[in-house]
Structure formats: structure tokens, C-alpha cells
């Protein structure tokens, strides 16, 4: 195989993988903290893309598109905090053994509600956002400016997320909660408050992904469906609750899709991810970095 061509395919896979990573990290972050699956993540992605569209069209203009990304994160972070407090927290009250399952079912209801709300408010139409950047090249890889900007934004946001988790007091408390929920409570940390913040951060990451990818995947009520599917594929491959696992799995999925599209057929692009998923689960049922058992 031609080396330049091979490098291009690998780079294309890395780019796609990074674009998927933000969504997957958001999903797995919420799961590692609250031990629940948020099925409405795609709808926060969708809301992030709508918000970006509205900001660029009515407030910021196309040149200041990059300001829309942190704004989408901030707005959905606050929305997420209130949704967690008002809608999900009641599921965690009391001594029910299945409260995380109840909360998960509530997120399915929210998915349906938000998707239909978008249809009611904006119609079933697809809106396009102006290009963020003209087409360019990344080394030997010709790349759309929108994808390059989305990739750079993803790297920036994930780096900030890593620094926050690793080096701040809140990050330490969040890691403690993910590792031992009972232990962190008795160490003096308010887990209900952390639940809200964790949910806000998780959906904020999805919203940032939606804002970054708005010109790539367009803005419409079901815009979040494909990123959600990819996100769930990634977290199962990487191991539910593992952030490093999600990052590696996202890159792996991007590579498999890219190379599969070139060497087999682009028509089966989505199929390659599922083959990877099944392959990983056959040999490691908990995913690449998954925990073998829950810690109370």
C-alpha cells in the first residue's frame, strides 16, 4: 500500500475518532458518577447544535463561531444541573435498590420529549451553519476546515476536562465519587451536589460536541441520534465508566470505520463499528478498560 495514502486513511480515522470522543466521554462520565445511563445525551448534542446555529445567526455572526462552543457548554451545563435536580434526583431518594434504573428510564422519556420539542419549536427541517474554516490539509491529509476546527476544539476541551478532573478539588471529589460513592459521602462530600455538577458537565460536553459539529452533521431534531449511537458503541468497547477507555475506543472506532470504508466498502461504514464491538465483547465482556464489578 502507498505509504502516503495509508497515512491519510489513518489520519482520517483519528480525526473521526476524536470527533466521536467528546460525546462518548460525556456519556461515560455521567455513568461513572451516577451509575446511570443517560439516553438523552443525543438531545443535548442536538440542543447544543441548535444553540450554536441561533448564536451564529442572530448574535455572534460566522466569524465568532468559536465563542458559541463555550456558550453552548455553559448554557447546557446550567440546564443539565436543573434537570438533574428537578427530574432525576427524585429517582435517587429513598432506599430503592433500582434507583439508577429508574433514572435511566426517565432519560428515555426526556429523549422523546426533547426531540419532539425541537420539532415543535423549529420544525422538522435541517438548518445549515456557515463553514467554520475553509478546506485545508493536515500533513498529507486533505481535510474540511469544519472537521479540522471540530477536532482542534475537541482536543482543547478534552485537555481542559483532563486538567479539571486531575488537578482541581472538584475533580478530585468527582473521581472519589466515581470510585466509591459511600466512601466519599463519609469523607464529608455532598454527593447530591456532585451528581448535579457531574450531570451538567456530561451534558455540557455533548452540547459542545453539537456546537462543534453543527456544520458537519447539520442542525435538525434528530441530529443527536448518530452521535449517540457512536457514543454508546464507544463506551461499551472502552468499558462503561472508563474515560481513558472511551478515548482509546473512540480512536479505534474512527480507524476501523475509516480503513473499513476504504478497503471494504463505505456502504458498510456503520457495520464495522458493530463488528469491532462484538469482537471486543467476545474477548473482554467488560470492554477494554471496564470494571469487573461495581463498588458500593
Amino acid at each position: 500500500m502507498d505509504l502516503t495514502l495509508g497515512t491519510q486513511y489513518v489520519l482520517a480515522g483519528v480525526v473521526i475518532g476524536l470527533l466521536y470522543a467528546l460525546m462518548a466521554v460525556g456519556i461515560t462520565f455521567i455513568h461513572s458518577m451516577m451509575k446511570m445511563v443517560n439516553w438523552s445525551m443525543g438531545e443535548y448534542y442536538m440542543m447544543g447544535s441548535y444553540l450554536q446555529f441561533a448564536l451564529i445567526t442572530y448574535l455572534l455572526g460566522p466569524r465568532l463561531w468559536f465563542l458559541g462552543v463555550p456558550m453552548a457548554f455553559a448554557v447546557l451545563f446550567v440546564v443539565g444541573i436543573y434537570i438533574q435536580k428537578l427530574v432525576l434526583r427524585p429517582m435517587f431518594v429513598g432506599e430503592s435498590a433500582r434507583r439508577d434504573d429508574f433514572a435511566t428510564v426517565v432519560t428515555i422519556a426526556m429523549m422523546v420529549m426533547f426531540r419532539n420539542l425541537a420539532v415543535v419549536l423549529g420544525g422538522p427541517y435541517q438548518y445549515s451553519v456557515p463553514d467554520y474554516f475553509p478546506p485545508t490539509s493536515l500533513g498529507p491529509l486533505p481535510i474540511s476546515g469544519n472537521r479540522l476546527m471540530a477536532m482542534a476544539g475537541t482536543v482543547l476541551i478534552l485537555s481542559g476536562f483532563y486538567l479539571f478532573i486531575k488537578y482541581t478539588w472538584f475533580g478530585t471529589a468527582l473521581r472519589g465519587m466515581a470510585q466509591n460513592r459511600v466512601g466519599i459521602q463519609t469523607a464529608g462530600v455532598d454527593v447530591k451536589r456532585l451528581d448535579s455538577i457531574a450531570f451538567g458537565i456530561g451534558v455540557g460536553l455533548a452540547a459542545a460536541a453539537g456546537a462543534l459539529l453543527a456544520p458537519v452533521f447539520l442542525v435538525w431534531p434528530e441530529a443527536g441520534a448518530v452521535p449517540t449511537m457512536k457514543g454508546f458503541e464507544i463506551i461499551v468497547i472502552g468499558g462503561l465508566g472508563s474515560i481513558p477507555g472511551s478515548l482509546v475506543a473512540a480512536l479505534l472506532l474512527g480507524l476501523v470505520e475509516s480503513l473499513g470504508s476504504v478497503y471494504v466498502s463505505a456502504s458498510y461504514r456503520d457495520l464495522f463499528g458493530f463488528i469491532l464491538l462484538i469482537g471486543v465483547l467476545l474477548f473482554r465482556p467488560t470492554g477494554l478498560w471496564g470494571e469487573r464489578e461495581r463498588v458500593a
Partner: protein
Amino acid sequence: MNLLAVENLSKRFGGLVAVNGITFSLRAGEIRGLIGPNGSGKSTTMNMIGGLYRPNGGRMLLNGRPLNRLQPYQRAALGLVRTFQIPKSFGDMTVRENLFVPALATARERSPAAFRAIAERVESQLAFFQLDHVAHLPARQLSGGQSMLLQIARGLMVEQLSLFLMDEPFAGINEVIKSTIIESILRMNRERGITFLIVSHEMPSVRRLCERVSVMHEGKLVAEGTVDEIGNNPVVIEAYLGGANGAAAR
């Protein structure tokens, strides 16, 4: 003066009455043992005082302040912490980071000077519990005994600690680590005036540490007194120790 007052405390799980209207109090600076056969309600009592279970009846007061409605983190802020029979460590964090968590969570000040003071306390606890040589390791790599030491050291990092609940701190622990735990309890009691409530089946350790012991059986408090007194109490011998064991315990 009483630090902890427990009045008519009850807990039911469906039809099972795990704790049935117990009343007792702890003096400030006391080291009290709480013993009883398996299933007598000791751990449920600890879980209610620690805030993990909400009682069905009765009330708990710490320094006269009602505890019933407070979450575990609010109790920790008042100086009430606990350990578990199976240590609840933060496995992926280093041993050192584990100690920082409660200190930072309950710190009244977040200045650089306060952080330096916390860092010094962390190092001093690591040295006292002989965990300094493993301070950089993830907590999940510790042995069972070291995990228990870490759990106790972590509890001692809570600012304004006044009451320390310990659930089976000596279970499955070797003699060297057991001695370190006993020494730490006596030292913290002496130096910081911390009150301890210790659930244990280890009668020799209880005898060494506790001036008084409370005995639970079938959810009720059936006796209270010194180890010798409860060892001679026929109700305790019948309910908990059994005749021959009772003689051995004495």
C-alpha cells in the same frame, strides 16, 4: 458531658426489626465498645449514626444537635466520621490523595497556607500509620490491613473530628497492624480528645481499649458496663457469649 445521645432509636427492614428502641450515650473523650452476636443490630446502629440509614423512630444528638435529618457529609462537617468493615477506599487514587479528600472536603479555609497545613498533616499521618512508603501507590494495591490503616488515617484527616465510629477495625488484620490501630486510637483519644465507638468481636482488643462496653442482642441493648461486668452478666452470657465462651472471655 455527653457527646452523643441516642434515644429510643429503631430501624425496620420490611417486617424485620433490626434495631428496636435502643438508648445510650457517650461521654466526650470516651472509648466505648459495641459488641453482640452477628445480626444483633450493631452495624445498623452504626449506619444510622453515620447517616447511611434513616431511622424509623427515635433520635440522635451530637453535642445536643439533632442528627436525624443530616446527610453523612453534614455529619462529617460536625466531626462525626466512620470506618467500614470492608474499607471504602478510592482505589484509583494514590494513598496520599485518599488522605487529602476528607481534609479538603471539611476544611474551613481554602488558602495556600491552609493547604500547606493539610499537606503537613497528610505526611504526618502517613508516617504514623507506616503508609509513607506506599503513599504514591494506588490504594487498590494495598493489603487488607493497610487498607484498614488508610481508612482510619483518612477519618483522622477530618477537621474538628469529635466522634469516630469504627466497624470491625480488627477483623482479619495481623497482630502488627492491630497494634498500630490500637496505638492510634489511644493516641488520638489522649492527644485530640476524640471519642470512639468501636464495634468489634475481638474481645482482647476491646478489653485493652474500652472503659465501657454496650451489648446488643436481637436489636436491643441488653447490657452496659466494663468488660468484666458484662463478662459476668448472665443475660450477656446467655445471649451472646455462651457459658463456656463467657468464662473464656473473662
